[in-house]
């Protein structure tokens, strides 16, 4: 046996078959960077001299095959250097594709972006059945496209429709999904990957599909046209990478005979153009912020290894939020008690839990069997049972401070002194709660504020009072991360962060209606701006009663900019409180919503003007939050608003939006 070890990978010859093991000696994961390409190139070069009969590529890492390009190193490159790096990757992968011997990628763990491009350059792919196996092209989510041959090879392997769906959605498939679309040939237990790859090399290779019916110029053009229409409707043209990727991938798929070199050229040019765009900058920045939020410490002084993990939790209150939190906690494998004051309420909560698990099965997140086992983890109770065994309790009862004070005094009796006691309130003062009668150990009280719907919203606000201990905050952070959510630590203050920034914007939108701007125009302006939903439609969704209540609390704290316009009061008193009542700023019947017409001026302001005015409300409030040190930094605000409200990601968030605007004004 002959062996060559370097810092990114190693090549061994076993029974005449070359086994290339990806194993970055310096990091826990494998990434594509300059050194990786250099070593890969030299390893491929050796193959011809050693007379190998085949090549297997696999990884020695526990959870990663090859996680794509190293964005940090790629981000440091500009112009020519970046162009050269793209070309180099294309060439090295192409040299693997051109090997005159059978090649198999044996995938276990994350095989993303550049990792998948390497796997696509192999003739066959097999993958482990492990949960950590994830295969996909996340590039478009960062405003880029696969440019190391991926946009060219994928449509040829899968056919145009499937390739487009993978690339444009950025979806990451598990082994089952990858096998289903034809991305991999077989699913094998992790321990048998190498054995099976070698057997495949020794066996006969099968014929590839040509995808004649989709990958021909006529059909490809039709597919491209209809995809383009859908994309424009969905993104309002704000995400150029999607349109560019659509173009490059469709053209690669149009004629399988077309020269690969020309398609590579298109990939590279598209990439170099996209990487310069503002959108891409913002998306990559948000990606890094999110990565940072996954591990960011609240207090470096706390020894987090000594803190107890949350092995069991309890949720008090089985309403929409309570059952949503309980379901999500169970879905992530943590046993959770779902408590309410009587069986009827608990039953409603258990119905929601069941519905959410059914939905997860429909969306292929869980198999029916997995969903059933996870559902077992939710223990319903209408009795005031002991919570001494619970590491963390989240209260999600009615939004009434006096009620919550009673609940917390009772929780203090029923739980142990070490139990973290959290409230999911979205507006009530947690410091006052922590200081109320009957509270023991107020240092373990804080807010863990989930957004609705819990299963979809990635952001969780960790609300810290002046009494909360750093250990409690770190334990809450660890819990939220264990759920796979992104936590942002905020100071206890009315509305916390996200709702506080959102509220003046919603109030202002209602004021615009009052001043004679049409409902449809206001919402259109913000959809064009890139918000996922117009502000008035959002008000209807929240409920005008709820919004009015929150706004008046905040007016008391911060003054007139939160004062609700008379129109809102009027609608509320008419019982037109939004979607739940069938009418608000819109009329709802069946599945249609029609904007209602209020008093409208003849001249309507321009869409840009409206958007600017409303976006300014958010940016202004965001700046005040930063000044008041509600949150650690401007980046956290941007991340929170994007994840918590869907604030147009390509704009980077309300702080970034403002700073870009002021830069422009300055120049």
């Amino acid at each position, binding site marked *: 046996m002959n062996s060559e070890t370097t810092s990114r990978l190693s090549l061994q010859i076993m029974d005449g078959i070359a086994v290339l093991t990806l194993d970055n000696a310096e990091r826990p994961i494998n990434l594509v960077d300059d050194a990786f390409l250099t070593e890969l190139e030299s390893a491929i070069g050796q193959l011809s001299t050693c007379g190998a009969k085949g090549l297997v590529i696999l990884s020695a890492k526990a959870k990663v095959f090859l996680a794509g390009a190293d964005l940090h190193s790629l981000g440091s490159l500009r112009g020519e250097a970046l162009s050269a790096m793209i070309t180099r990757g294309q060439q090295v992968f192409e040299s693997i594709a051109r090997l005159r011997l059978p090649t198999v990628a044996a995938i276990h763990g994350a095989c993303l972006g550049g990792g998948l491009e390497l796997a696509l350059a192999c003739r066959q792919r097999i993958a482990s059945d492990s949960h950590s196996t994830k295969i996909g092209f996340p590039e478009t989510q960062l405003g880029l496209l696969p440019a190391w041959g991926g946009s060219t090879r994928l449509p040829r392997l899968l056919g145009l429709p499937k390739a487009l769906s993978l690339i444009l959605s950025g979806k990451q498939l598990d082994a089952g999904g990858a096998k289903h679309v034809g991305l991999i040939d077989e699913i094998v237990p992790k321990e048998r990957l190498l054995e099976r790859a070698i057997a495949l090399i020794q066996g006969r290779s099968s014929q590839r599909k040509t995808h004649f019916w989709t990958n021909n110029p006529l059909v490809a053009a039709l597919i491209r046209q209809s995809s383009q229409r859908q994309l424009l409707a969905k993104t309002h043209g704000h995400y150029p990478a999607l349109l560019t990727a659509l173009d490059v991938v469709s053209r690669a798929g149009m004629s399988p005979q077309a020269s690969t070199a020309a398609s590579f050229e298109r990939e590279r040019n598209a990439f170099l153009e996209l990487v310069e765009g503002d959108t891409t900058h913002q998306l990559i920045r948000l990606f890094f912020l999110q990565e940072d939020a996954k591990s960011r410490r609240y207090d470096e002084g706390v020894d987090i290894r000594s803190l107890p993990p949350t092995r069991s939790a309890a949720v008090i209150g089985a309403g929409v939020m309570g059952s949503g939190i309980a379901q999500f906690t169970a879905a992530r494998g943590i046993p959770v008690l779902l408590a309410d004051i009587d069986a009827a309420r608990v*039953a409603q909560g258990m*119905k929601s839990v069941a519905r959410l698990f059914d939905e997860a099965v429909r969306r292929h997140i869980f198999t029916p069997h997995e969903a059933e086992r996870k559902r077992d983890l939710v223990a*319903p109770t209408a*009795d005031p*049972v*002991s919570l001494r*065994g619970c590491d963390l309790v989240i209260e999600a009862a009615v939004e009434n401070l006096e009620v919550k004070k009673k609940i917390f005094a009772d929780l203090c009796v029923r739980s142990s002194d070490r139990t973290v006691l959290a409230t999911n309130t979205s507006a009530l003062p947690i410091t006052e709660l922590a200081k109320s009668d009957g509270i023991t150990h107020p240092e373990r009280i804080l807010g863990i504020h989930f957004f609705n719907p819990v299963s979809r919203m990635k952001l969780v606000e960790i609300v810290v009072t002046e009494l909360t201990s750093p250990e409690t905050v770190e334990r809450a952070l660890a819990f939220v991360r264990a759920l796979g959510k992104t936590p942002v630590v905020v100071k206890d203050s009315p509305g916390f962060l996200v709702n506080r920034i959102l509220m003046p914007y919603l109030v202002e939108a209602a004021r615009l209606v009052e001043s004679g701007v049409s409902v449809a125009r206001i919402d259109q302006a913000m959809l064009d701006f890139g918000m996922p939903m117009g502000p008035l439609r959002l008000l209807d969704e929240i409920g005008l009663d709820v919004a009015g209540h929150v706004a008046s609390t905040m007016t008391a704290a911060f003054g007139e900019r939160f004062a609700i316009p008379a129109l809102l009061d009027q609608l509320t008193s008419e019982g037109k409180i939004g979607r739940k009542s069938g009418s608000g700023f819109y009329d709802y019947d069946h599945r249609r919503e029609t904007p209602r017409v209020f008093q409208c001026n003849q001249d309507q302001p321009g869409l840009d003007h409206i958007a600017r005015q409303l976006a300014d409300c958010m940016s202004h409030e965001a700046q005040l939050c930063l000044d008041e040190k509600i949150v650690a930094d401007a980046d956290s605000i941007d991340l929170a608003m994007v994840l918590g409200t869907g604030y147009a990601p390509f704009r980077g968030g309300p702080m970034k939006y403002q700073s870009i605007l002021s830069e422009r004004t300055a120049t």
Partner: protein
Amino acid sequence: MSTSAERSFVIVDGVRTPFLKMGSDFATIDAVEQGRVVIQTLLSRTGIDPEIVDEVIFGCVSQPADAANIARVIALRAGLPQSIPAMTVHRNCASGLEALTTASDRHAAGHGEVFIVGGTENMSRIPLFFPLAAAAKFAALSRAKTAGGRAAAAIRFRPSDFAPVVGLKLGLTDPVSGMNMGETAELVARDYGISREEQDLFALSSHRKSTAGRAELAKEIIPVYLPNTSQGYVDKDNGVRENQTIEALARLRPVFEPKTGTVTAGNSSQITDGAVALLAMDEKRAESLGLEPLGRLVDYAYSGCDPRRMGLGPAFAIRKLHQRTGLRPEEADLIEINEAFAAQVLAVLKLLKSEDFSGLAIPEDRLNLLGGAIALGHPVGATGARLVLTVLKQLQSSGKKRALISLCIGGGQGGAAWLERL
């Protein structure tokens, strides 16, 4: 005997599902889910750390085909750690009691201190079987390789091959004597001269006592959450007929001997789904955990008898237990004899008044105060544990001291146990 102070075995708490008639709300779940719910609730109500449990022992008569060793399946799904072993016990209608007495023996032998015991039965879901001849033909069909072979195998089926064998009926038939349980009840009714009217009156009384005892019974019952039902949960036994009349009972036709018999659906136990779980442990362990037990298991006995007269089992078991403990039924504040059939209970009462059983007569004013299986139902694997739970909760409510429970067991056995408050 396990009465020695050192090794006293106590029942700390217990819960049960409502008992629901076959084909009602529990037909949508199964014995595993029922068992999972009672253990999960027992754990959350008592607040004990699951790690301290030494073993889970559950009774189940008709174990679902997809849950071999159902106790293990239930234990894992209820959230008990993988390291805690679980076993299923089977003594027919006494399986729920067997779970407790097996745990008590384990404890006495020094094999563990803390046990979760109980029983679960879902009679709605007992499967139908294909006849053996049909099974052979299915096997031949699946072995056939060619289309011709498959066709040849397929045409050998006859309509009778598709007539299912009812699993429930098989389970309720004693294979040794070949008699159905109802037929054994008819036999003791004839032997002991128990009239139809006596049986119907006994049944009526059972329904009346269960109706009056709703509030007391509610203390044993936990709500079971069923997201697919409109109310979303069940927390009441649904077999109790609050307006049962003697006339209505008299109108029912005998099931097992249509022309001459006396045993009807009305004076027999109901076929029912349900589960019970008890937390049982060493007395000193309970004390050190700060738990206040409901009571202790004083002693128990099982005894065999004629399978064709299995309903007489309690008399023999009570006598055997008397020989072990010296305790007589008259010393009990409460007595439960499971109501498999009114005829069988009435025959046991007669037998215990006879010379052979001198001094063991049952004081009938203390018998089955909350009714019994005729009103509540008889989920066979769970009933034994229900009797324990029912008497312990009643002792707690009434502040009384001692209880005797007993049941007849298909196949010709009886079981009995003494329980007392500490």
